[in-house]
Structure formats: structure tokens, C-alpha cells
């Protein structure tokens, strides 16, 4: 229970034991990966056979190709980062316009639109992925058949990966940014208008102020959600 109420000793002990066990559960897999990256053995498994940097610095001549010598692996890290950057930029951009649309505009169908925007959260990722794949292939085929165009970006590849990730990451960006926008005091914007700021300028300034502190948050989400749907790769 809360600190202002008396808590028996066993409860306090149990609470902290549980917190300890929970943190162990959270960090054990990560710690194991980190530790065995330095193990001097061909497989990431016990026993510990001594410290080595081979898995980072090793070259083909030493039988173990380290990370920094494996150009294919390095290139794939580059690809992942490129996708993450694109998805982040697009999602934050559209997430911000969505947040302003939902929080600052009154129009017919707003409620329905806001519900539809939440839909990607409850559609299993695989289905989102295959449906986008199916539609893109259909459009590419049609364009090829009817117009003779070769729309390469609609074939499985990086642009589709970005679109697929983007399609549901936007929802998360919209949710976080509009939650922030809702808490923002509108009278500050009105005061700026009274003092002669133009409306777009006012919106832009207020947006930067309030979201500025929050913007680092949405981008982190796309980064950590990135591996969710392997089918889109």
C-alpha cells in the first residue's frame, strides 16, 4: 500500500524482492548477450573460455570474422538505420499534423476519424504487412499492364518496408503528440495572437515549444518497435 499507511515488514521485504526479481528478468537476456559477445568460443554458450575481442575486431585471417570486418553486416546496420530515420521523420511529421487536426479542428466526422486512426494498433502486424504488400503488388501489376510503367518502388523492397513500418508507427506518434497538445494552455496561443503574432506563426511557435520537449519521445518508439514485423523485410 501507499507509504503514508503502515506496511508490515514482510510486505516491504516482499515488495523489494519482487522488484529485484523483475529487474533480473528484464536484464538477464541483455546481460547474457553482452557478456557472450566477448567469450573466446565458437558458440555463445557456457563455459567462459576467456576474454576476446575477436567477435568485433577479428579478420578472415584469424578464422573469426569480427563485426567491423564483416562488410555485409555493417551494410545491414546502415540499411536498418536508414529505414529507421525515414520512418521516424515521416511518422513525427504526419503525427504532428494529425495531432493538430484532432485537437485544434472541429469538423464533421472527427470522432470517427480519430477512432480509425487508432485501428493500426489493434490490427495484427502481419496482416497490416501482407495487406500492404498485396495492394502494392496489385497497383504495380496494373500499372505495368495498362500503362507499361515499371513501378519498382511498389515491389518488395526498402520503400515498402518504410511504408509498412510507418503505417502503424504514425498512430503511436499521433497519440503521444496529441496528449501533449491537449495539456497545453490554449490561452498562451490566444495571448500571442492578441500581441500581433500571425496565426500560422503562432501555431508553429507554440507547437515547437510544447512538443520540443516531447519530440524525442515518439522517435524512440519507432526505433524500438522496428523489429516487430519481420514479414515486411
Amino acid at each position, binding site marked *: 500500500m501507499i507509504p503514508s499507511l503502515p506496511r508490515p515488514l514482510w510486505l516491504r521485504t516482499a515488495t523489494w524482492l519482487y522488484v529485484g526479481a523483475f529487474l533480473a528478468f528484464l536484464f538477464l537476456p541483455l546481460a547474457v*548477450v553482452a557478456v557472450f559477445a566477448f567469450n573466446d568460443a565458437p558458440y555463445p554458450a557456457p563455459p567462459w573460455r576467456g576474454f576476446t575481442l575477436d567477435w568485433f575486431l577479428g579478420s578472415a585471417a584469424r578464422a573469426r570474422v569480427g563485426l567491423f570486418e564483416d562488410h555485409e553486416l555493417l551494410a545491414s546496420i546502415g540499411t536498418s538505420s536508414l529505414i529507421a530515420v525515414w520512418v521516424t521523420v515521416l511518422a513525427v511529421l*504526419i503525427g504532428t499534423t494529425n495531432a493538430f487536426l484532432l485537437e485544434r479542428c472541429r469538423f464533421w466526422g472527427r470522432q470517427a476519424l480519430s477512432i480509425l486512426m487508432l485501428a493500426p494498433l489493434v490490427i495484427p502486424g502481419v496482416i497490416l504487412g501482407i*495487406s500492404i504488400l498485396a*495492394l502494392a503488388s496489385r497497383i504495380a501489376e496494373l500499372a505495368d499492364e495498362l500503362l507499361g510503367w515499371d513501378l519498382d518502388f511498389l515491389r518488395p523492397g526498402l520503400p515498402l518496408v518504410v511504408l509498412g513500418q510507418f503505417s502503424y508507427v504514425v498512430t503511436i506518434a499521433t497519440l503521444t503528440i496529441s496528449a501533449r497538445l491537449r495539456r497545453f494552455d490554449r490561452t498562451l496561443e490566444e495571448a500571442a495572437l492578441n500581441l500581433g503574432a500571425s496565426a500560422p506563426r503562432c501555431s508553429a511557435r507554440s507547437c515547437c515549444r510544447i512538443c520540443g520537449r516531447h519530440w524525442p519521445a515518439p522517435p524512440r518508439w519507432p526505433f524500438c518497435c522496428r*523489429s516487430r514485423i519481420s514479414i515486411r523485410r
Partner: protein
Amino acid sequence: MAETAAAGPWKRLALWLLLAPALAWLLALIVLPHVELAVLSFRERVGPRQYALSFAQYRTFFEEPLYWHVFVRTAWLSVISTLLTLLLALPIAWVIAKLVRGRAGALLFAICLIPFWVSETVRTLGWMILLRESGVLPALLVKLGITAVPIELLYRDATILVGLVYTSMLFMLVPLVSSLESLDDALVEAAYDLGAGGFAILRTIVIPHAAPGITAGCIIVFMLTLGNYLTPTLLGGKNSQWFTEQIYTQFITRFNWEQGAALGFLLLALSTGLVVAGLKLTGQRFGDVMRST
């Protein structure tokens, strides 16, 4: 629309400018793809590049016991994993929101979120190193004398559950903490003064107050679990029999997009049905619940 029209042309233009990207996103990436998926699932190949309207794909699902079995199994394991995640996250959320506050609370919260900055692949690899026959935990069990030889801990249903709970913990913890933080301590104190025990306080005050957060967490975790591909495949191996694997196989390995689309639609129907049932059961509304995250 009348209100914005009266407010001047600038507001109207702004509305359309804001509406355009939202509509483009929802139509091109959410609505139309699902229409295409529906069209795919209701057709059958009758010859080279010739298709006819049919229910054959859905019939296959109901006639083939394997699909049924995997479907029910996936739903069942997802429900168990969601409830387990809730059970494990609730005490931690309480500690973060109520017991340690201020900087210490924020720090503990941040520590709990750090593992989720690492991708799911790496976290699953960690579990594989820990649990496989030549891994850390079986070796530890032998050393402690609990088992004579290293036992294989991977490729079991319990292992899949551990992985799923681990992966979805973040999405349960965040809504729980934010809904518990808004609970007024005075209510808990008042209940205590009136003689309520710990369990009564939990049942009559904490749970009702946190209900939107609990529901939101459960919905998101359930969806992520049901649609998860990586964790069941890596931790469950060939025995995992997860429904998303079936869909993946139809699309990628067998190139039977029609069958895959039908399976995808059935999964969508299952998830929507279970979420609606859950909302009805707890008397919550979808929009309110999701905004509480």
C-alpha cells in the same frame, strides 16, 4: 464544417491541409490494403491467370483440422500471456506510481523501459542463449545438482510464454503507470481508515480507477502477441505452431496469396471479436481506453 467555414478561409485551408496527410495515410495504407485483402480472400485460381469468386479458401480453413488447431492454440496462448503480463506488471506499476516517487520513481521507470530500446531480435537471442540445452540455465541446473544432464528448455510452450510476456511488458507497464499515477492517495487512506483491508482496497478502489489503463494495456499486449512472428518462431521452433507462421508460409513459401489472405482475415476477425468482447465485459469504450495510454 459550418463552424470552420464561418471562421474564415484560412481556417478552412488549414483544415484541408491537415486532413490531407491523415486521409492519405489511412486510405492508402490501412483501408485500401484491407479491401484488397478481402478481394484476394474471396477468389480462387481456376486456370493460369484466371480467377473466380469463391469461398474455397475459407472452406479449406474449416475443413483442415491443422488450421483450426493452430488458430485456437494461438488465441489461447495469447490470452494467457496477456493475463500473465498484467499480473507481473501490476505490482511494478504500483511501486513506480505510488511507493517510490519523484526522481527515484522516474529512475525506476526508466530502468524498466531501457531493455525495450533493444530490438526484439536481440532480446530473443538472449533468451535462446539462456535457455537452450547448451545454454546458461541448464548448465546452472546441473551445477546445482537439480538435474543430472542439461535439459532442453527451448521449444516448449512455457518458453514461448516467457518470451511473449517479456516482449510485451513495456506496452503493459506504460498505460498502467500513467493510470495509477492519477489515483488520489486520499482515497486509499480514507478506505484504510474505514477499515478496508489490502485486498478490499485493491478490488474496490485501485482496479476500478485503473480500469481504462488496464484495458488499454491488455488490448495492445493481446494484439502484439497475436500478431507476433519472431518470438514464437525462435523460441518455439517447429513446435510453436503460431497462426502468423501459417499466414507467412502461405504468402512467402507457398505463394498461395488467396489462402494467406483468408487466414489473415480470420485472424483479424478473431482479434476484433476478442477485443470487442473484452470491452463489453469491462464496460469500456475503445476511444477513451486508447487515449488513456
